[in-house]
């Protein structure tokens, strides 16, 4: 698909806007099984992201993503800050000073991000966290790429899989994060981090579609 730094920057801006629009929704999800701040946290963090990269010319994708990471780490607070921060950090480290990324690069960046999140959060799939939308999405993306589907199709399948994973968090008893204190009582609720992660993947797909479609 070959996205350049400027395009990636635009996608990040769109993500920030989307998070802001979903601030109350994410916060309400978190109020049900956490401490009711996920939307507030994320929106604060992505505001800082915009500030941090608005003057970045996108020449060095790796550096830009590290800036995103630092902004998230320093401003989101809570659990999701270090997790998303680590994700962007790992993605940025993988991409290094490449000036464009392909769908395969994108896959590798996501995989690095996932591994970063899992290591940081000591989490695996099925614990009712953002991992539950991210991991199936990445697996699906891999399969689609291996099947040589066209790029938009790959991304679309990835988003659908993220959505299924996200919806499935309703059926999971949380064993990580604040929701784990609820035990069985966490069943029936979506995990806010899984939702924000799905929304981010969806935004990426939609933006790439606009650029490429």
């Amino acid at each position, binding site marked *: 698909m070959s996205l350049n730094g400027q395009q990636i920057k635009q996608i990040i801006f769109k993500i920030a806007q989307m998070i802001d629009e979903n601030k109350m929704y994410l916060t309400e999800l978190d109020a049900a099984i956490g*401490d*009711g*701040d996920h939307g507030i*946290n994320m929106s604060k963090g992505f505001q800082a992201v915009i500030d941090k990269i608005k003057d970045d010319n996108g020449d060095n994708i790796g550096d830009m993503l590290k800036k995103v990471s630092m902004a998230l*780490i*320093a*401003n*989101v*607070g*809570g*659990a999701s*800050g*270090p*997790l998303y*921060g*680590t994700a962007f950090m790992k993605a940025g480290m993988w991409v290094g000073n490449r000036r464009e990324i392909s769908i395969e690069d994108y896959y590798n960046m996501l995989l690095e991000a996932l591994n970063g999140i899992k290591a*940081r*959060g000591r989490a695996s799939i099925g614990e009712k966290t953002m991992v539950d939308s991210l991991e199936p999405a990445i697996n699906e993306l891999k399969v689609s790429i291996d099947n040589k589907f066209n790029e938009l199709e790959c991304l679309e399948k990835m988003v659908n899989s993220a959505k299924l994973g996200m919806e499935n968090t309703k059926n999971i008893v949380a*064993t*990580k*994060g*604040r929701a*784990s*204190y*609820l035990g069985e*009582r966490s069943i029936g609720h979506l995990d806010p981090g899984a939702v924000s992660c799905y929304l981010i993947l969806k935004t990426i797909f939609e933006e790439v579609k606009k650029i490429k479609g």
Partner: protein
Amino acid sequence: MKKVINNPNYVVEEMINGLIKAYPEYLKRVDNYNVIVRKSAPNKKVALVSGGGSGHEPAHAGYVGYGMLDAAVLGEVFTSPTPDQIYEAIKAVDAGDGVLLIIKNYTGDVMNFEITKEMAEMEGIKVESVIVNDDVAVENSLYTAGRRGIAGTVFVHKIAGAMAEEGASLEEVKRVAQKVINNVRSMGMALTPCTVPAAGKPNFTLQEDEMEIGMGIHGEPGTHREKIKPADEIVEHMLNKIFDDMPLSENDDVAVMVNGLSGTPLMELYIVNNKVNDVLKSKGVNVYRTYVGEYMTSLEMAGFSISILKLDEELKRLLDAKANTVAFKVL
């Protein structure tokens, strides 16, 4: 929301200013950061850094001073501080002998402190960390986020702080901090919720005749909710939960902390201690020291926690060592 504040968004900032203005002989602030450090510390010693969300005062800034912490990092209310803040604290107090991070076991705290640890290590600063998880209301297993860190943390500050003040190495200080963690268990209960200023409304509700047993210090759910019972019955139940997790034998020495969450008057905490002491004595356990007061609060929540720390000779010595901080003094 009935609070004596100016603006919900500036409570932490104004609190820090009010604290520093109250105790300039003990504390100073790292400019532009929510980091409070000792006014004066010896040049060479292991430095102790703790922190977490605000709303638990006097924790942790109240424990910065001689014989306890070197720095406290203050997050927003009930929100972990971020790595840039924690990093600043580490840099402010590292004297070359290494830094011990004392972390309460909450996902956000653990991750933010650990990221910072990696950042500091990359800069060549020797950093170790311990994770306090004393709250037996939560089951500890590989498959959960594990027990939470609550008032028992203050014992870690006190004892590891005394060890550092003696000039021990980072490894030694970490060892004794971990020994405290291994030997301390706590459990809390709440009668009323509390309100995060920025949220403006209580974080949960309890009926006029209800209490929640095992409640966490941010209002996290406990083991169950029930009708209010006499103090003695509540205490007995809570102690049994603690003993289930950490059995005590005859002639064991313990330190007791009866910690108010803020809304509960001292009178009630003493009534609680009356029973705690009786139960321990009836088991032949020797109560070496007792601390009754507000050590780790939860905004204006009414309720209390009980912490029991099993002591050996080393822990006794360090518990009784001189300390001079705003909220904990030993002469």
